[in-house]
């Protein structure tokens, strides 16, 4: 399979991996958001806890989430490889650059944005996923099955305004990351067309605004509710 | 030595065919035993190097630029002629031949020109096969336009960048042979001498422009594809690096220099704006299809314009002199280049020039915009208008363009026979570097044609005729002849560096340019030329006494490069003046004020001057010796050009 490694090790192949994993993560965001929005259903966390429980016991979902972690890791690893490669391509930098006139800020700072999102992700996982998986969460009776009370963990967490603020800011980073990443992934895959590219760019921008906004709504609303 | 053009006998149309059959061939298996040096990688050089390598010869290609793709062929805008007759408008090989001979004012060799017209059709095929994106019609076939006053549409073009696209085609063919290992490329390497052994060209001496190393390269044949010498005028449309050095060194080693005084002045260039000017930019001749040339009727109005007291667009039609339309009712603004140029000079000499320097005329698109709308004009000339605005800061949609003639092309060059061989056996000259096909004046869109014809379709046949008679062994690079040439080159460099005078190289180059432009430019006279000769001699003497070149020879040293080139221009300038003095007639790009018709048109003297003037170098400080190649016209009747 040498041609596979050859292709994937080329700068184009590495970019392809970034784009493909990026696409998957975009899909994941949608699914994750759909689940999380259930936090805002005023039923004392019933639908959310049921959803969290089903996620935990469904083998398909579990394997998908392992793949998801793998792809996040791949996205991170390749971004590190590419960044190192790109830094090496210009060993002596310019004394003066005026890049704001030729490209967007987000497009030039995907690495920084990605790193900030990764930090958020680690905090996020530590706060929820880790505590559900390895902690001893409270139990709650849902019909006749006893399930983890994930809802209460979230409610508790979002009582802290600093924590809420951290979430909101992180979603801003995500928005900027997506504002470039969404359309950029299409370009890397070779999808550039006079008719469709402007549409893709608009959809990408809409996506980059809508999804992080909805994500950010959750902690804000829950904080307000806790007051 | 009697100049033998080696033009084949027989019917004009059969000459090239029979010649191709009669030339000696080199066995395919033996071609790799021959090494050919190609100097210059423009259209002629790149196409020759690629084609010869494809045949199996070992090729070394040299250019002074950082890449072969930068050669100045790239700047040609208009197009390339070919007798394809795709437009069904009456074109033919014979018509292209006839137009070229007539346009050249009957000062070129019939057989060469006919061959050029014949192979022109192959060039287009070749370039299309390489992926050159010529303009096309909606049906997918190639588009043509009429160019430079031709009566048929035979010009193929790629927007305003035909030269670029053709050169990139030839460059790609060359690159393919580099990858195949058949061509070794030497960028940033300048040829500084030809080496002859037993009277035959056997190699060159070069300077590596990065390290300054002087090196010898031995070969069985040497091709000079080094372009023209328009930069002798300092200001020209040539690239800054374009130079005569390769051709001039060959001349000093025994190659005759033919018709050096034939200089083409292009009528539509952006005028000089001040003393700082380093080069002139051409605006495509196609602009004259829709633009109208004029100056104010009176000196008073012109003065107001120069002081910016009035705007050109406010001058009413009755105060404008559309001098080309008035003087030449049938051709109008589309008269040939030399006629348009000379008339611009006349009106400016009368004091009716329209910019601060007094050396500019208007090219006005007002009427075209009124007639066809701004959008149509934009679609035709948009990139040229943008370029004009970029350079001058004026918007040509609102105010007329200012233009003035500038040196553009040199028809003269190394004398070559039908095989493109100079008077030194084994040394060839191709493209603008030779003199052969354009006579006293070149038609628009014919330079690209000639460069590629020579490289793709002539030299691959004719070089074999010489090589087939040569032994496989070539002289070693430590042969005394190489060592001697190397030390001469080194001595000259050391001399330039050791003068440590007071004036820069550009100072002398500018002075030389002014002398040439004033006395050997659009109009020449015996008195002026004689004066110029003295001035150039003095200038040359002063140059070698007072030029300042800093730095060392063993490094990248751009002042040294320039000094080396300008030193040769100073010598060439004198020869151009000798040639212009000798030619007591007016023809094409050579206009002697003493020889004109009562209407002020060029007056040829076919009786006494229907010959090629080939000059032989006789040594430092000696007058050069004139040799004549009589031109025989069997197929065309010599007529006086008339554009009334």
């Amino acid at each position, binding site marked *: 399979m040498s041609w596979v490694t050859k292709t994937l090790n080329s700068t184009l192949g590495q970019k392809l991996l970034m784009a493909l994993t990026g696409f998957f993560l975009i899909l994941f965001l949608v699914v994750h958001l759909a689940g999380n929005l259930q936090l805002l259903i005023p039923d004392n966390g019933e639908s959310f806890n049921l959803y969290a429980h089903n996620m935990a016991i469904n083998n398909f979902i579990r394997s998908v989430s392992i793949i998801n972690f793998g792809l996040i890791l791949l996205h991170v690893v390749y971004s590190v490889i590419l960044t190192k490669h790109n830094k090496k391509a*210009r060993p002596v930098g310019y004394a003066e650059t005026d890049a704001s006139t030729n490209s967007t800020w987000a497009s030039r700072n995907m690495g920084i944005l990605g790193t900030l999102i990764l930090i958020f992700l680690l905090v996020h996982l530590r706060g929820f996923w880790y505590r559900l998986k390895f902690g001893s969460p409270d139990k709650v009776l849902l019909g006749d099955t006893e399930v983890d009370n994930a809802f209460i963990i979230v409610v508790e967490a979002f009582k802290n305004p600093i924590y809420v603020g951290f979430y909101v800011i992180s979603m801003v980073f995500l928005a900027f990351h997506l504002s470039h990443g969404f359309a950029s992934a299409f370009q890397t895959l070779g999808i550039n067309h006079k008719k469709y590219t402007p549409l893709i760019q608009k959809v990408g921008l809409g996506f980059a605004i809508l999804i992080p906004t909805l994500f950010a709504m959750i902690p804000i609303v829950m904080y307000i509710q806790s007051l | 030595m009697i100049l033998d053009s080696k033009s084949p006998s027989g019917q004009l149309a059969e000459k090239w065919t029979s010649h191709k059959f009669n030339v000696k061939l080199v066995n395919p298996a033996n071609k790799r035993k021959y090494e050919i040096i190609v100097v210059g990688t423009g259209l002629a050089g790149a196409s020759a190097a690629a084609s010869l390598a494809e045949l199996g010869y070992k090729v070394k290609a040299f250019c002074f630029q950082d890449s072969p793709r930068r050669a100045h062929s790239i700047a040609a805008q208009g197009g390339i002629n070919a007798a394809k007759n*795709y437009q069904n408008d009456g074109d033919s090989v014979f018509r292209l031949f006839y137009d070229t001979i007539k346009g050249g004012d009957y000062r070129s060799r019939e057989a060469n020109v006919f061959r050029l017209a014949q192979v022109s059709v192959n060039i287009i095929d070749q370039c299309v096969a390489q992926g050159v994106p010529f303009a096309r019609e909606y049906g997918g076939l190639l588009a043509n336009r009429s160019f430079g006053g031709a009566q048929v549409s035979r010009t193929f073009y790629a927007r305003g960048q035909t030269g670029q696209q053709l050169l990139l085609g030839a460059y790609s063919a060359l690159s393919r042979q580099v990858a195949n290992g058949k061509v070794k490329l030497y960028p940033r390497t300048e040829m500084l001498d030809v080496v002859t052994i037993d009277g035959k060209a056997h190699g060159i001496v070069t300077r590596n422009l990065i390290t300054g190393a002087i090196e010898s390269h031995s070969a069985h044949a040497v091709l000079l594809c080094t372009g023209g010498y328009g930069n002798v005028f300092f200001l020209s449309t040539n*690239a800054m690096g374009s130079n005569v050095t390769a051709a001039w060194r060959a001349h000093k080693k025994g190659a005759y220099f033919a018709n050096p005084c034939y200089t083409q002045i292009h009528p539509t260039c952006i005028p000089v704006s001040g003393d700082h000017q380093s080069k002139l930019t051409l605006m495509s001749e196609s602009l004259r299809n829709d633009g109208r040339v004029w100056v104010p009727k009176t000196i008073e109005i012109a003065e107001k314009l120069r002081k910016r007291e009035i705007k050109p667009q406010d001058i009413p039609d009755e105060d404008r002199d559309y001098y080309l339309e008035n003087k030449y009712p049938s051709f109008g603004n589309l008269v040939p280049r030399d006629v348009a140029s000379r008339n611009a000079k006349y009106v400016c000499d009368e004091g009716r020039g329209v910019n601060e320097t007094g050396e500019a005329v208007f090219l006005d698109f007002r009427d075209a915009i009124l007639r066809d709308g701004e959008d149509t004009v934009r679609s035709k000339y948009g990139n040229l208008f943008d370029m004009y605005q970029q350079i001058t800061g004026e918007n040509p949609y609102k105010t007329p363009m200012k233009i003035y003639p500038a040196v553009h092309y040199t028809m003269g060059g190394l004398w070559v026979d039908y095989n493109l061989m100079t008077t030194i056996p084994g040394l060839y000259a191709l493209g603008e570097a030779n003199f052969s096909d354009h006579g006293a004046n070149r038609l628009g869109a014919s330079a690209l044609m000639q460069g590629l014809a020579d490289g793709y379709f002539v030299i691959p046949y004719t070089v074999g005729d010489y090589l087939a008679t040569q032994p496989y062994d070539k002289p070693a690079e430590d042969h005394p002849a190489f060592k001697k040439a190397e030390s001469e080159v080194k001595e000259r460099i050391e001399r330039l560096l050791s003068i440590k005078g007071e004036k820069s190289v550009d100072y002398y180059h500018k002075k030389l340019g002014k002398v040439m432009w004033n006395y050997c430019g659009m109009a020449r006279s015996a008195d002026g030329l004689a004066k110029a000769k003295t001035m150039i001699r003095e200038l040359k003497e002063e140059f070698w006494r007072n030029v300042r070149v800093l730095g060392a020879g063993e490094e990248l040293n751009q002042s040294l490069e320039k000094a080396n080139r300008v030193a040769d221009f100073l010598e060439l300038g004198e020869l151009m003046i000798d040639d212009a003095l000798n030619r007591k007639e007016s023809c094409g790009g050579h206009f002697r004020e003493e020889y004109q018709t009562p209407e002020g048109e060029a007056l040829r003297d076919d009786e006494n001057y229907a010959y090629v003037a080939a000059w032989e170098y006789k040594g430092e400080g000696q007058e050069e010796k004139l040799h004549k190649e009589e031109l025989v016209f069997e197929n065309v009747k010599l007529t006086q050009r008339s554009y009334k």
Partner: protein
Amino acid sequence: MNLTLKVWRQKNASDKGGFREYKVKDISADMSFLEMLDVLNEELLEKGEDPVHFDHDCREGICGMCSLHINGKPHGPSQTTTCQLHMRSFKDGQTITIEPFRAKAFPVVKDLVVDRGAFDRIIQSGGYVSVNTGGVPDANEIPIPKVLADEAFDAATCIGCGACVAACKNASAMLFVSAKISQLSLLPQGRVERKERAEKMIAQMDKEGFGACTNTGACSAECPKEIKLSNIARMNREYFKASVTTENV
């Protein structure tokens, strides 16, 4: 106008180099940027200082030899070549920083002169149609739709100046490479070798040490010939298609 120039000076490839400041006076707005440097060099020569070396040749925006990173942008503030940049784009009293194009694949030779031989080697790796001189069909034998011919032409106008590399934060050469791949893959003549060409040219590009593309679009925004970003997308398609379908294992 009077200007302060901050110019990168470097004796040779191995020298470390640094900025030097120069003042130039009475610069006319009609001068081109390079003519302004000519003025500086004349003054330096008079003072007995080594003139500033920079690449240039045609001075009409087509040969691609001039370079320079001026006030943070390749070829300076307007989207054109340095030789076509005129001093009316600057203000009296302004400080202008002039640096060489920076990339590992474009090593500095001296002062502002860089070696762009990498571009030649990329073309040599496959940027051509493999036809020998002679023996080709008549030019009108293969009709090419005007739209395709025009699009190929748009890509073919690349002058190989390297501004795309200089502008890219990753010093990526994708715009240059994609322009040639696009031109030839759009035309029937070039289609025969399109797969091999894509694979070879990209391998060579990587070998030369250029960076990867992050689709910032800076290359296209700075390209004096306005080569479009869609060429890079086309190159990606060509390359991935080639990788999957050629028989080169």
